[in-house]
């Protein structure tokens, strides 16, 4: 390779007199950089980065298990972490044994370790109240943080947030409308279903309005998002104005965000959306990396930019829509978590997306734990807490990245 360069270089420099010397020194340098690139330049740091990514994902998974066990045990009825684990293991044991019996294998699995909750209501508290709430927190946190990472990726802007394309304002319109009209054609599912539908509709509206000539410009998309958000807030304001006091209270509290009253049916409703969303997000990861070169360069590398953008936007709407449908508006998770993960794991989306999902889950389970235990007999609004902590933290992030060379970390 390097000798070929030097010969062509010589050929081109022909007649300048010192061609032979230039050629040979260039060849030597090329060979040296070649060796550097092979030995020091690529393999060792790549391995180090992979180890770091594994460590991050593993650490977050462990933290999630820990915070889940702690959160499930805390509350008016205290259950020790050992008893929480014991209860889960007993259910796992009997569940697996039941499954194996169904396929014709009868065994006694040695999984029923640990002790069950000592309190008479312990099992019921755990399985009817705490676990559905914790699992919903995991799902909503993962959905919001992944949606944030996706948005930042497709907009090529670390400040992008799901709210920018109108998902949560749109969802608020649907929810407030249900509260005002008292509609109940889907029973207790009416408000979540309406929120999800209008959230998705608002997003598609933003996308359709900002498209022209088969292409979408990022700035146009953001500004259209601002316009649609303004109209959505006006509609919510109108609904709040005409609502009776009870409905008004519902609207206000929905916008503050809470996981209060979460039950298994809600978990079952959110689960498929979040799973599909997370899988598609990971499939898009490599294309999102390429998109950071800009639309044009990404297209030159084979990315169908328009298709990538619409798939990602629909996924974001699905993730955020299903999240806010049951939990209300919870801000800053989508903005702060991906930032934090990028600082540790670098900007590659193949690690960033799963790390954000785990990080978002940890954050929201923790925040919900604080929300329901910080003040006795009071359930603080979750959205208020995340914004209260997220705002100053984000400011600190901004200062920190600005003070370092090269900008965004």
């Amino acid at each position, binding site marked *: 390779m390097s000798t070929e360069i030097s010969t062509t270089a010589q050929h081109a420099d022909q007649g300048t007199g010192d061609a032979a010397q230039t050629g040979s020194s260039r060849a030597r340098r090329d060979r040296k950089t070649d060796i*550097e690139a092979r030995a020091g330049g690529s393999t060792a740091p790549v391995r180090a980065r992979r180890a770091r990514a594994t460590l991050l994902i593993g650490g977050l998974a462990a933290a999630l298990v820990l915070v889940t066990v702690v959160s499930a045990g805390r509350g008016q009825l205290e259950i020790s972490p050992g008893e929480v684990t014991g209860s889960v293991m007993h259910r796992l044991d009997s569940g697996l044994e039941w499954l194996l019996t169904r396929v014709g294998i009868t065994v006694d699995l040695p999984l029923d370790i640990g002790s069950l909750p000592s309190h008479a209501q312990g099992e019921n508290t755990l399985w009817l109240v705490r676990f559905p709430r914790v699992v919903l927190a995991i799902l909503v946190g993962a959905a919001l943080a992944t949606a944030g990472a996706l948005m930042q990726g497709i907009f090529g802007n670390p400040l992008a947030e799901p709210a920018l394309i109108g998902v949560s304002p749109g969802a608020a319109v649907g929810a407030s409308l249900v509260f005002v009209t008292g509609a109940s054609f889907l029973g207790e599912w009416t408000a979540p279903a309406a929120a999800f539908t209008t959230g998705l509709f608002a997003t598609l509206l933003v996308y359709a309005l900002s498209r022209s000539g088969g292409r979408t410009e990022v700035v146009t998309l953001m500004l259209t998002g601002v316009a649609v958000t303004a109209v959505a807030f006006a509609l919510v304001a109108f609904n709040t104005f005409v609502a009776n006091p009870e409905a008004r209270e519902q609207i206000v509290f929905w916008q503050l965000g809470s996981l209060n009253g979460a039950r298994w049916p809600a978990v079952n409703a959110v689960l498929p959306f979040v799973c599909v969303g997370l899988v598609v997000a990971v499939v898009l990861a490599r294309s999102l990396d390429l998109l950071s070169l800009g639309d044009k360069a990404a297209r030159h590398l084979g990315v169908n930019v328009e298709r990538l953008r619409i798939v990602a936007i629909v996924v974001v709407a699905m993730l955020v829509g299903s999240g806010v449908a049951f939990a209300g508006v919870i801000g800053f998770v989508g903005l702060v978590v991906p930032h934090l993960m990028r600082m540790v794991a670098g900007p590659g989306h193949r690690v960033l997306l799963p790390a954000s999902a785990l990080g978002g889950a940890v954050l929201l389970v923790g925040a919900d734990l604080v929300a329901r235990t910080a003040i006795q007999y009071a359930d603080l609004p979750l959205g208020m807490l995340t914004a209260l902590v997220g705002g100053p933290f984000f400011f600190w992030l901004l200062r920190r990245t600005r003070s370092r060379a090269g900008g965004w970390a």
Partner: protein
Amino acid sequence: MSRLLAPRRRRMPSRIGPGEAVAAVRGAGVVLGGAQILHDVSLDVRTSEVLALVGPNGAGKSTLLSVLTGDIRPEKGTAELCGRATHEWSAAESAMRRAVLLQQVNLSFPFTVVEVVAMGRAPWAGTERENDDEAAIAEAMAVADVGAFAERRFNTLSGGERARVALARVLAQRTQLVLLDEPTAALDLHHQEMVLAVARQRAAAGDAVVVVLHDLNLAAGYADRVAVLSRGALASVGSASEVLTSELLSDVYTHDVEVLKHPRGAAPIILPRR
């Protein structure tokens, strides 16, 4: 949605023999924002050849390059890539056939140099040529002389270093057609010569290289053919000695240009009269 997500079969490229056209525009006319940017341009891009596009600012060099890349579909005339209309190839299929170095090189997230170069391998993911990834990346980094800062973050590099990283990414793509839009603009003298030596070497290996240049001496020294654009039309195409004449250049650039014979027989020296 199902149509959007369904994987389509990609047609793999086959190598085109030396001296044959890998891309072509015929009678291409482009209007942007009401202004006629290109007018009736016909040009073949052949393998084993470095083709330089030169001309004054606003002559349509970058637009012609965009027609060749498929970014702009000409209103009049046709653009072809590997025997088919450029727009008939999917983005992924085009990416296996031509690599593009843009004038502006930006990155919205702080990837490292190695990661950026590795992005050039994306078109081959899932094909058997994926096995060449490591070799292609290492070779491209060596050729573009970026091995020394392989682990630095792209956004901490100087303009010239960024340009070379972008070049390495384009080289790592290993396509038979390489389109370079002003690759020497941010580079020092040594690296300017290096980039064009790389272009020559790719041509010697049977690839086709199109390079937009402002430095006429670089065009004269390295290009097999030079295309001079003037006010959206092709003023002349041919070897450097045929095309780069005092009369033509003085007319195109509306500035007196001298073309001198090199004392030791190398490419002609082109100087504006001062």
